């Protein structure tokens, strides 16, 4: 049936991440943002809750639970409610693990998953975005060329989360017009990783530009072997992740203004008594719901093994537009105070824009 109630397990996982964020992140997100880094310990604590590995079979080092996009969506919303940069850093390994666990050959799973699914957090990631005008995840400029048994990768990637510390990363590239994912190892010849990129938001998250110049990878580096990956599904899972993080940010902005608007008095009354403010807050509330529901709808189809191409595409599109609008309202309602970086709405305003501008920062 159509059901919006969480199962016991979903509730439990959601609550544990919610508590983690409350304890570790909520009060530190701004400092992390200013400092430009996330404490390793905070990442490790989330990792220990098994966010990226729970869906991996035990033989490959995971918990052997169901690979659940819905559960990931719940987790990502909770993490991003605390801070999106944190959510991306914590789940970056999902960008590597999920596609392999989902679409890799048995050999690839055996070879690649165990090292990524260890008790300690190690960085594994994906390089998907490209820096040029009109960049598009479905028409990649990065190319892969088959050459005596191996593949030669050429192209430039940007916004690759934590790439500089990654043991391995997946790189999306076009092979004879077909989009594929390839495993590239740290220090591979022809692989250059930039300094930390400077971005509009997500100050505490390291992202890097990844340059591939005739970077040669072996034949078995192509995920899914000769038939490649279901690229639409890869994008769909990453788009559900983006939408879920958007829902988390919007909920955070909403909670801040709800409190501020009833406490802040102007003209002798709380500003919440003014329809212009109150109606903005009402809109923030139902649009946040809408973003979440759209992410869940796409996740439901993925969970059922169906195509969610349309649903995930629309969910990310909607989330990209609405998250900006909602987080803009967040700053507007706080007025001058919202323009100050100490106030979390300020960070949300910058981070929210990433949903529309960037692709594949995490996987649901």
């Amino acid at each position: 049936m159509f059901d919006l109630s969480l199962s016991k397990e979903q509730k439990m996982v959601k609550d544990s991440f919610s508590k983690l964020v409350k304890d570790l992140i909520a009060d530190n997100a701004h400092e992390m943002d200013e400092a430009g880094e996330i404490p390793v310990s905070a990442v490790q604590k989330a990792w220990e809750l098994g966010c990226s590995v729970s869906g991996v079979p035990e033989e490959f080092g995971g918990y052997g639970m169901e690979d659940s996009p819905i559960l990931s969506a719940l987790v990502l919303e909770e993490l991003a409610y605390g801070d999106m940069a944190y959510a991306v850093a914590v789940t970056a390994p999902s960008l590597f693990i999920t596609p392999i666990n989902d679409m890799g050959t048995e050999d690839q799973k055996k070879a690649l998953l165990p090292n990524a699914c260890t008790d300690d957090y190690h960085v594994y990631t994906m390089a998907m975005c490209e820096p040029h005008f009109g960049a598009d995840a479905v028409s990649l400029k990065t190319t892969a060329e088959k050459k005596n048994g191996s593949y030669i990768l050429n192209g430039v990637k940007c916004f690759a989360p934590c790439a500089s510390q990654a043991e391995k990363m997946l790189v999306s590239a076009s092979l004879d017009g077909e989009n594929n994912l390839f495993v590239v190892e740290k220090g591979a010849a022809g692989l250059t990783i930039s300094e930390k990129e400077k971005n509009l938001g997500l100050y505490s998250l390291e992202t890097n530009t990844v340059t591939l110049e005739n970077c040669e990878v072996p034949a078995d580096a192509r995920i899914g072997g000769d038939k490649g990956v279901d690229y639409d599904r890869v994008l769909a899972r990453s788009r559900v992740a983006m939408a879920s993080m958007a829902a988390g940010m919007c909920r955070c902005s909403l909670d801040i203004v709800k409190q501020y608007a009833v406490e802040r008095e102007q003209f002798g009354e709380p500003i919440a008594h003014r329809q212009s403010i109150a109606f903005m807050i009402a809109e923030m509330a139902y649009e946040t719901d809408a973003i979440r529901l759209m992410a869940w709808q796409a996740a439901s189809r993925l969970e059922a093994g169906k195509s969610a191409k349309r649903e995930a595409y629309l969910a990310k599109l909607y989330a990209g537009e609405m998250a900006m609008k909602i987080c803009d309202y967040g700053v507007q309602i706080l007025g001058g105070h919202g323009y100050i970086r100490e106030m979390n709405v300020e960070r949300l305003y910058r981070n929210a824009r990433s949903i529309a501008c960037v692709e594949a920062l995490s996987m649901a």
Partner: protein
Amino acid sequence: MINLELPDYLDNLKTQMKGFAEGLLRPIARKYDEAEHTYPVELDVLKGMPVMSRPKKKAGEEKPKKGAERKNGSNMSQAVTVESICWGDVGLMLSIPGAGLGNAAIVAVATDEQMERFGSKWAAMAITEPGSGSDAGSIQTTAVLDGDEWVLNGEKIFVTCADRCDAVVVWANVDPSAGKAGIKSFIVEKGTPGFTLEKLEHKLGIRASDTGTFFLKDCRIPKDNILGSAEVKKSTEGFKGVMKTFDNTRPMVASMSNGVAGASLEFLKQKMEEAGIALDYNENTNNVSAMQKEYYMMEANLEAMRLLTYKASWMADEKIFNNVEASMSKAKAGRAGTLITQKVCELLGSMGFTREHLAEKWMRDSKILDIFEGTGQIQHLIVARNILKLSRNELK
């Protein structure tokens, strides 16, 4: 467990209702838009169609047969049904015998005896008065108990199905001194002396629907025609109870908007495809045509409208208090639906301004859905008061 996919039986219901709408309603949509107020005889076949049936028990409560999965309740079925029918034509949907908003009110609060007496009647809903639109609490119509009868006096406007209905659920105050607390709803049957249909309105849209004005002059109805208790409580609980009707009807109006907006979008999509403009939900919207981007953004909004409506309906089925979500669904669907139908006309260019196509009609029809059963502004007010925990005096 979270699952936002419609179960097969609801998908089938949708298909079935859409087929019915396509076969029976679409072909006559324009006819009755132009023949304003004329009763669509083609709808006779629908008499007693269970659009407005009594809610099932809470989904959970039905002891499922061993292994049988839980099913969604009647509100979800209604959301799917209403949307599909309004995809055909919302004006005609409002003209389906027995599917009046009054029926929704009866279904919501009537006793079994009243269901017995009125369940099969076509019941309209009369709330608004010349002096009270959004402010339902300020209605002037009075009901005075005289022996075994209520005596009603007042004027009611904007009554849907005014001409065709068998009975009207009339809101009246039994104790004006008690203010809102005195407001009750009564079932007044057509033909009751002192109950006269004054006029029918010419409207922007939903012209197939006969919207009218009633006068009640010393109109006497049986004592048992009151819906709910006659007791006037100190608190405004009673009034809140009456207002609760809206928690059922608002998601229904949202569903209407989903249907109209869906029809409009589908027409645009068809024209785009005929022109070779494909929709593959693939390329970045920065790299598609203006037509495609506008379409994607509108379809995303339709999904948002629909899911907020499903949420409110699902909560009703699960017996979860859905007052806020009901208003959220109508606030979003009412507004976004209007904007979608307007935008589609813009994108159709000359095809969007001619009556040779239905796009222009959908832009007229959809507008009422952001107005009746509480304007978008009222919906925002309800949502904001709830989430900010403000009284009606704090947030006016």
